[in-house]
């Protein structure tokens, strides 16, 4: 049996993508050191409990905020509704660790907010208006107000596709507006909400920057401490494996919920929702409900960052910033280009060959997005160390581990899902009969890809690059571990300054990260507008 490039590439990629994760999981079968016993006896329960509190609190808050705001902007017409529609996604541009840094800068005892209130009301230094934020409830707020857009986005798409007739049937059966929302509207889109919620939980358990800044012991901070404090990589891997198992369970739930998502969408009976105009108190309430998450998750941190940047560090575009920004952008561009090229090759292979095993392989490649960056970094580091010792050490030490190869590999594995879904949706818009005709016109393989598919996938390819760039720029834990010596990115630059409580110096890189993070939001906003069923009528 002969295999072509289109069949071998997905397999090779699968091995490369799975190897780092397998290395981490394999540690569970090894010996357990004294450090493991220590962790098990004294801190593991705290890691589990803190992570569980975070997950529970964040889940409740993002569901309330995400679903509630999505329902309002989809079903009602109120002041600012057209702006809220897209502005509610803005907090996605702010990584949780940047919101954590700005929250401490704002609400700490001598933070901007407390100082302002003391100045306005002429109060003494002992007076503190806001509660402490460096704790689990503070972290819940931080995660919730940066991650709720995941739930908002899926809920909004599902609500948009909900037919008016179903909701009107509820009204005729005696439900009031609120009952229609929680007895009909929400249950009908439950699979979509669960899908969004799983993404939020994955992000929460993978986070390192915010929980580290708030000094909350979770699995990720525990892995870091075990590795860099106890110098015990094996125990760190074992701890990371537990986190990975949890992530795998979440992936399975997310996939399962997506499988059931179809019942929320009866397109054949579709009638677009008609918006109810709100006036008076309900109008003000709806405005406040939608404005608050944008204020906490986006406006407040951005205002604080600009306040720091402009008042304390006017020369923030210094050499260090420019070097770091350049490092970040070229790394992100390399990773984004690789991700997009690989996504094109894999999706083309599936379409061209039409084998079921390629589809299965491709779906495995996309689960990297759910693997915490920290775990990927440990696996990639171990893999490269092995290659360095086995093959390259004859020439020089740390050839691979000391380079950006590991970093790029981790970024590609983590972000491949973004590229793949973008290219896949691009391919769905190309009629498969185009391929049939092209083949009868003596065009196949690379020629078919280059002459027919690539020109038609131009926009998807560019979108994929932008999405990956904005994702990679925010990535922190993997970058911290895998970066070469004396090589900083904007996220690392921000982390180091924030860790040293030099918030003003952290402002410039943070602003840059947020600005780049706005790119996918603009793309998402356009996609939502064009995908709205009502717009096709």
């Amino acid at each position: 049996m002969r295999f072509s490039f289109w069949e071998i590439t997905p397999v090779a990629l699968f091995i490369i993508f799975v190897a780092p994760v397998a290395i981490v999981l394999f540690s569970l079968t090894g010996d357990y050191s004294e450090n493991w016993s220590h962790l098990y006896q004294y801190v593991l329960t705290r890691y589990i409990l803190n992570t569980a509190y975070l997950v529970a609190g964040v889940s409740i808050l993002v569901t309330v905020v995400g679903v509630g705001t999505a329902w309002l902007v989809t079903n009602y017409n109120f002041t600012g509704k057209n702006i809220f529609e897209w502005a509610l996604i803005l907090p996605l541009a702010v990584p949780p660790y940047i919101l954590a840094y700005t929250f401490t800068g704002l609400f700490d005892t001598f933070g901007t907010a407390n100082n302002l209130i003391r100045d306005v009301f002429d109060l003494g230094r002992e007076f503190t208006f806001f509660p402490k934020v460096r704790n689990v409830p503070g972290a819940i707020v931080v995660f919730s107000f940066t991650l709720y857009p995941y739930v908002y986005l899926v809920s909004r798409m599902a609500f948009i596709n909900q037919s008016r007739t179903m909701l009107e049937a509820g009204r005729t059966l005696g439900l009031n507006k609120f009952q229609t929302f929680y007895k009909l509207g929400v249950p009908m889109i439950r699979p979509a909400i669960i899908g969004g919620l799983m993404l939020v939980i994955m992000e929460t358990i993978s986070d390192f920057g915010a929980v580290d800044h708030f000094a909350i012991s979770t699995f990720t901070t525990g892995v870091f401490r075990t590795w860099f404090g106890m110098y015990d990589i094996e125990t760190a891997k074992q701890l990371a494996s537990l986190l990975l198992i949890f992530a795998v369970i979440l992936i399975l739930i997310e996939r399962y919920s997506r499988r059931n998502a179809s019942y929320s969408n009866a397109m054949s009976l579709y009638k677009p929702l008609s918006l109810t105009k709100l006036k008076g108190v309900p109008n003000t309430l709806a405005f406040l409900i939608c404005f608050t998450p944008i204020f906490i998750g986006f406006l407040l941190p951005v205002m604080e960052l600009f306040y720091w940047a402009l008042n304390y560090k006017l020369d923030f575009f210094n050499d260090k910033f420019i070097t770091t920004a350049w490092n970040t952008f070229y790394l992100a561009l390399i990773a984004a280009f690789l991700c997009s090229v690989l996504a094109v090759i894999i999706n083309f292979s599936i379409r061209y060959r039409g084998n079921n095993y390629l589809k299965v392989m491709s779906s495995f490649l996309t689960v990297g997005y759910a693997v915490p960056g920290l775990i990927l970094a440990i696996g990639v580091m171990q893999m490269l160390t092995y290659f360095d010792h086995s093959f390259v050490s004859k020439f020089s030490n740390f050839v691979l581990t000391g380079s950006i190869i590991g970093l790029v590999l981790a970024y590609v594995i983590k972000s491949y899902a973004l590229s793949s879904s973008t290219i896949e949706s691009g391919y769905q818009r190309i009629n498969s009969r185009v391929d049939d005709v092209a083949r009868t016109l003596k065009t196949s393989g690379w020629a078919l890809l280059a002459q027919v598919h690539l020109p038609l996938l131009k926009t998807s390819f560019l979108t994929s690059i932008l999405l990956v760039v904005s994702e990679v720029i925010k990535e922190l834990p993997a970058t911290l571990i895998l970066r070469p010596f004396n090589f900083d990115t904007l996220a690392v630059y921000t982390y180091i300054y924030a860790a040293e409580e030099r918030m003003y110096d952290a402002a410039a890189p943070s602003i840059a990260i947020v600005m780049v993070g706005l790119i996918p939001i603009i793309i998402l906003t356009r996609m939502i507008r064009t995908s709205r069923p009502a717009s096709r009528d």
Partner: protein
Amino acid sequence: MTALEIKDLSHYYVKGKNVLNDVSLELDKGEILSILGPSGCGKTTLLRIIAGLEKETSGSVHMNDQIISDHYHTVLTENRNIGLVVQERALFPHLTIISNVMFGVSGSKTERHSTAMRLLKLFRVDRYAYNYPNEISSGEQQRVAIARAMAPNPKILLMDEPFGTLDQSLTNQLRVETRKILKDNNITAIIVSHDFDDALSMSDKVIVIEDGTVIQSGSAKDITHISREKSVKFSSIKANT
């Protein structure tokens, strides 16, 4: 010389559920054959097998007395020298009309250009040569699609429901035009359709397929006669489509 011969061809996607059963047919150079049948009867699958886009489960396909597909041999689609026209037209949206028609033609740029222009003139769409597909009407798009398929001078032209999405008057006009061009250029063609009128007005031979089996075959006149007499079932399906 026989342009196309199909011998005892059967095909299934799920074992035990044949899409085609022992189909055999012969087509001489310059002849036009219509394959008629209701939706899902297997006629498009037969066309895809001739084009090499599907591999038959058993049987063989011969072109110009050479095997192009059987249990042991498979000539790839791109090497079969076949033209394909589909209902959706499938014009390349990123290319101009002239570039679409030049796409499969080999030779120097000047030669390719003059071939494409000649065909566009033949189909009376040369004035749109430098427009994009979305800038012309669906009837014009269909003319371009046929011109594109004919441009590489294929041994056989396959047309899958070529006029399926067009209105009746345009369909009538295109049937006449297309048959004339095919006959003038001595092109062997197979037209898949569920429409009796396509078969009557365009083809020399007709086969009728139902549930993957050839139930009638003969000249267009014979089939009209037999169908009027016997084929009540297919007519009723046709009336519903």
